[in-house]
């Protein structure tokens, strides 16, 4: 690597001091960043009598995890959440890749209108939206069904992801698609067989983010599901009762929910950083 990419911090310090200081600073930042989650993990390991006064006492136990796992709904909820996150990711990308492509490659009134629509609806607050959404899903018979949870989740992402996908496609030279069209592809062929594969890095970046967003989504899940489609965030929310919070169980569930998200983020970050260049 060239030297210039590393201008020195605090050039007046001796190298050893600089290194130590740097390491300390980085360690501190990491600690501060991870702290709430570390604390959550610690909390989940404390017996119920110690989930608030986490710092008082040194008993640790897996009892909360055992209790949570003994509920068969929790397993179902994990599977459901995984399924819904995955499906929502796949479908969100299916619809937004094509819509972003359209925004990038065509500059007609249709494109401007669509962009305007997306922009306007991106600005609408969720509050004015979820409750009518409940009416709508209920009257269409979609309340508390996979479809009824999945489709709105996809709809949420349309505006944002279409916008991002447009940016990604703007960065891809269209001549490959022209070549494909001359090579006998229809426009669809050129889009699916050539443009989409070249946008894969961006698509995988969005996939990772979309999965995480959906996995952690609360409000829609809360409003749109009953008991037939328990998802993990709703199960967590059910630990908030009229008679107080079952914080130990909630923390344990949250920690378990952290694990898949962590794995996705761990293995996905490479694609995210590579793909997010707009």
């Amino acid at each position, binding site marked *: 690597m060239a030297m210039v990419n590393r201008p020195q911090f605090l050039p007046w310090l001796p190298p050893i001091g600089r290194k130590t200081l740097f390491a300390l600073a980085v360690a501190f930042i990491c600690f501060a960043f991870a702290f709430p989650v570390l604390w959550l993990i610690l909390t989940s390991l404390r017996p*119920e*009598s110690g*989930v608030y*006064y986490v710092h008082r006492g040194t008993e640790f136990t897996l009892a909360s995890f055992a209790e949570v796992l003994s509920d068969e709904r929790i397993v179902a909820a994990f599977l459901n959440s995984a399924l819904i996150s995955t499906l929502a990711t796949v479908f969100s990308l299916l619809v937004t890749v094509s819509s972003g492509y359209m925004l990038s490659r065509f500059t007609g009134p249709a494109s401007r209108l669509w962009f305007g629509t997306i922009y306007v609806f991106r600005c609408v607050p969720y509050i004015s939206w979820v409750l009518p959404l409940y009416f709508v899903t209920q009257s269409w018979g979609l309340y508390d069904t996979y479809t009824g949870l999945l489709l709105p989740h996809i709809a949420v992402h349309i505006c944002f992801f279409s916008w991002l996908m447009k940016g990604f496609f703007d960065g891809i030279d269209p001549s490959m698609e022209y070549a494909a069209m001359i090579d006998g592809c229809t426009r669809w062929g050129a889009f699916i067989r050539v443009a989409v594969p070249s946008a894969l890095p961006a698509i995988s970046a969005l996939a990772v983010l979309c999965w995480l967003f959906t996995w952690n989504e609360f409000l829609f899940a809360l409003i749109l599901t009953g008991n037939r489609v328990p998802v993990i965030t709703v199960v967590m*929310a*059910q630990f*908030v*009762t009229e*008679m107080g919070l079952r914080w130990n169980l909630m923390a344990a569930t949250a920690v378990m929910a952290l694990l898949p998200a962590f794995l996705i983020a761990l293995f996905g970050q490479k694609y995210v950083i590579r793909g997010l260049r707009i």
Partner: protein
Amino acid sequence: QVKELRIGYQPSPIQDASIAMFEAWGAKNGVKIVKVPNSYGVYVEKMTASLTSNSDQYDVIWHNDDWGQTWAHLLEPTDDVEANKFGSKWSMSPIVFANAQGQNTVVPMGQTFSVFFYRSDLVKPEEVPKTLDELVTMSKKLQADGKVKFGYVGGMSMNHSWFSWFWSMWANNCDVLLPAYERDNKKLAEAGWKSSLTDPCMQKTVEYWWDAINTHKISPRGMPAYDRNEANAIFMAGDAAFTVADTLWWGTFNDPNKSKIVGKVAAARFPLGPDRKKPFGWDDIWGWAIPKSIPEERKKLAKQMLNAMMLDEEGQTKLFKSTGAPPPNTTFWPKIAEQDAFMKLLKEAVLDSPDKVRGAYYFPQWPAVHKAFNDAVTKAVTGKREDIAKVLAENAPLVSKAAQ
């Protein structure tokens, strides 16, 4: 065809115990009980939306006095549930649950109210503070002796106002709206939905808490933002000598898994303020209701089930044992009280109290009023002491306005 009943509820020990009775009945009568838990955070809004959209998602739903009047017109009358006559007359008053035709719309599930808890290892029953002033002196003494960090800790923020604001207000012969203790909407309207914030009794109450927190330091400075989780956590950790909480927590305070003060808790009457001489009790119910929109035969089935539940002595005894909430059938109370000291205490302190107050108001604007009230007193107690009167006066019109 399998008969089934769908129960819309919200997981909590009382409801779980009540549903256990449904299930026992269902097993005997060949009815499948389908439990549909809902999240607390959105229960009322979702259920309201469901009721107004005439869906038949639920046959029996959890009902509560706070929204008794909000739903009354959407619910099936339950006057024909015979065993309802055994319910508490006070709690099932028409003011709370009757529809426009005066028909009752609830079947009780259990009594829910708060009591004054104290640390029996630190305070002898005869030393328990009887007045707010005694609460201060007793607390200061315990703190000075290094027995506890704080005298009193209780919930204060919105939705948990009851645990400190409401009882202390009542103890000062005060209420959210004037005239005090009035719940007849017509009379309240005649009085112009007058807020009590400008009443001297309210100022006294706020000043009491201001002093408790800032002058006497018997309560933590963060208390105005506490909800019940935080207050109870501190109490259960042994850091406070007194609290006010739902009777339900009796079980929790005495659960070695959850609490550090097992066997060191007792309950008593609320300490009184200078303006009130007679002790008072506060008593509400949770109940079950049947949506109007479901088919007739299921309504009938649901009523049969609820009737059976009301008569299930074994189940109701279990309900009390597991939760500390007095069961819905008042005729079982004496028997339980004979075996159980806590029930005896509850009967004396609250249930049999001749002077009872109601926790909420019964009209649709109540949540807005409650919030306006809570915002006002929180603002006053977290501000400067000399500004209290001013803040209360400024906010009084907002409470009245919210009620209209």
